[in-house]
């Protein structure tokens, strides 16, 4: 067993954190799992509720086959076993946002079995996290508890929306690993198009199971932190909870199995009010439905249609474009980003393109809070600019200026880099004679510095800087450097 570098220290020694995640991913379908009501976010309360969703007397579920396809597609993306025969069960409990008094879910026979995903760790290593299963289930509605002093309000728009519950093995050992897992899972889902992964809107949320133990010991009692809806909060919640459990145990207490909530304002987790018997869900096969069955042909058709997934794309970027694993990893984080890169890299130096995309494009978009789809600078323009640097039309430094102008002007201006270079007179000076003249000028004007340079060759840099300034930054730095060294006799 590999040594775990992620131990946290307590008063009595080092502790290991054991983490398992249950991620709820909303299926990117137009209609709900068992009803024909819409799933769009942000609608007027109770306006996307059918009689079935409201659990009116005599109402019955009918499965949305598209959701089944998306679950199979996701299972294939997770390299998991697809179960051609699965069963829908009722999970029975009472809560105002659960109108039926039960949730239609899958218990003993889920649609997807074991799989795995690889996560990228900070040090460049790769770790495999096992997936135990994926099943389809209904989402519940939403309760608002803070609108009124003694009433809660219920909106059933979300009730019945299709969820894929993806259960990991308890293979993660740190908050960073858990975050990497969710990031990777989200990327895979977005690549597949089976879930939009929008954590703010709740289409992707995680229940985090946290327990601690001394390395080598049996698993500790776990607590479940429910409905964490941002990667940042996942990290915070885990750190708090692990520390809470360690402190509790070291103070002589025992960890109770509990369901807890993370409060982003305080950064703490707190126990949910639990009733005894809260966990006897009395699962049984839903008698309003029949077993979910499909042929192997059905699965194979879906398999044919899978896109290139992040891992495969990353490997291809490394192999075909010669990118570093780190850069490749950053670029494949979102399918749209990777596509942008590939378009820009056509016919250009891929590494240089990668640098500009990651360094300038992503940085600019982050700052302006924009998506790649709304990038003011197009992939073609990036490619062109990289090409103009490569053929010495513009220096690297001037290119940065060009980029900023393109970014500010935005797609409306639509000016290609070559045009901007022309208009702003940023063309790099490569004419050796002109550069030589500039060098001579600086040398002639600074005889004392020339003498110093002979003692300290590093002073050549000062001369280069002066020449660059005199040429407004447009001289080709390599040419300037070469001539300065030559003229100073430092070759």
């Amino acid at each position, binding site marked *: 067993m590999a040594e775990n570098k992620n131990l946290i220290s307590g008063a009595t020694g080092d502790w290991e954190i054991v983490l398992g995640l249950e991620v709820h991913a909303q299926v990117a*379908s*137009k*209609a709900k799992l068992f*009803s*024909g*009501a*819409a799933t769009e976010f942000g609608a*007027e*309360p*109770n*306006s*996307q*509720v*059918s*009689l*079935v*969703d*409201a659990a009116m007397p005599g109402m019955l579920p*009918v*499965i*949305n*086959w*598209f*959701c*089944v396809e998306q679950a199979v597609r996701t299972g294939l993306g997770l390299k998991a076993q697809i179960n051609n025969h699965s069963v829908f069960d009722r999970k029975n409990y*009472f*809560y*105002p946002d659960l109108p039926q008094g039960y949730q239609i879910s899958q218990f003993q026979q889920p649609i997807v079995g074991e799989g795995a995903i690889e996560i990228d760790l900070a040090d460049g290593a790769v770790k495999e996290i096992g997936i135990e299963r994926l099943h389809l289930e209904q989402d519940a509605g939403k*309760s*608002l*508890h803070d*609108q*009124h*002093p*003694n*009433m*809660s*309000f*219920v*909106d*059933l728009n979300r009730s019945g929306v299709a969820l894929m519950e993806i259960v990991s093995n308890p293979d993660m050992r740190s908050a960073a690993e858990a975050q990497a897992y969710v990031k990777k899972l989200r990327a895979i889902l977005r690549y597949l198009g089976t879930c939009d992964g929008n954590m703010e809107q709740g289409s992707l949320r995680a229940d985090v199971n946290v327990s601690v133990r001394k390395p080598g010991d049996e698993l500790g009692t776990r607590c479940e932190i429910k409905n964490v809806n941002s990667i940042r909060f996942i990290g915070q919640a885990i750190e708090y909870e692990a520390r809470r459990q360690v402190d509790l145990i070291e103070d002589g207490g025992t960890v109770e199995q509990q369901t807890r*909530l993370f409060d982003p304002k305080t950064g703490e987790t707190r126990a*949910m*009010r639990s*009733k*005894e*018997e809260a966990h*006897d869900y*009395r699962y049984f*096969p839903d*008698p309003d*439905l*029949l*077993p*979910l*069955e499909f042929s192997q042909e059905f699965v194979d058709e879906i398999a044919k249609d899978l896109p290139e997934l992040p891992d495969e794309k990353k490997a291809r970027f490394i192999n075909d474009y010669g990118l570093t694993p780190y850069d490749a990893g950053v670029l494949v984080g979102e399918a749209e980003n990777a596509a942008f890169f590939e378009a820009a890299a056509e016919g250009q130096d891929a590494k240089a393109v990668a640098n500009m995309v990651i360094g300038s494009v992503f940085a600019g978009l982050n700052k302006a809070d924009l998506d790649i789809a709304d990038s003011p600078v197009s992939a073609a323009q990036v490619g062109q600019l990289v090409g103009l640097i490569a053929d010495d039309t513009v220096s690297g430094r001037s290119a940065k200026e060009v980029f900023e102008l393109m970014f500010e002007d935005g797609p409306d201006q639509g000016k290609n880099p070559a045009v901007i270079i022309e208009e702003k007179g940023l063309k790099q000076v490569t004419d050796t004679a002109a550069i030589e003249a500039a060098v001579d000028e600086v040398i002639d004007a600074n005889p004392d510095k020339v003498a110093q340079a002979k003692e300290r060759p590093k002073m050549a840099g000062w001369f280069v800087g002066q020449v660059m300034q005199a040429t407004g930054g447009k001289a080709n730095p390599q040419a300037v450097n070469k001539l300065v060294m030559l003229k100073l006799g430092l070759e």
Partner: protein
Amino acid sequence: MSVDENMVRRIANLARIGVTNGELPALAKELSAIIGFVEQLSELDTDGVKPLTSAVEDRIRGREDVVTDGGYAEDVLANAPEKDDEYFAVPKVVE
């Protein structure tokens, strides 16, 4: 197996049906009698018999991913015992 009062309380809680202490003895007796009656099934050897959940042998039938329903909040809320504008209203839930 007989159903005692503690079990009745547990079941009633799971089923969210309020029972007073006074009701417990009679319920325990009635439920015990019924459970006693249905327990004769244990006489049968059912090893290897596949449970029959539905008399229907067909494959599950599905629908297309098209929005065909919803958009009638008024009807949905029409029978609500208590509501606030567009929401169902219930006694406050403490999480």
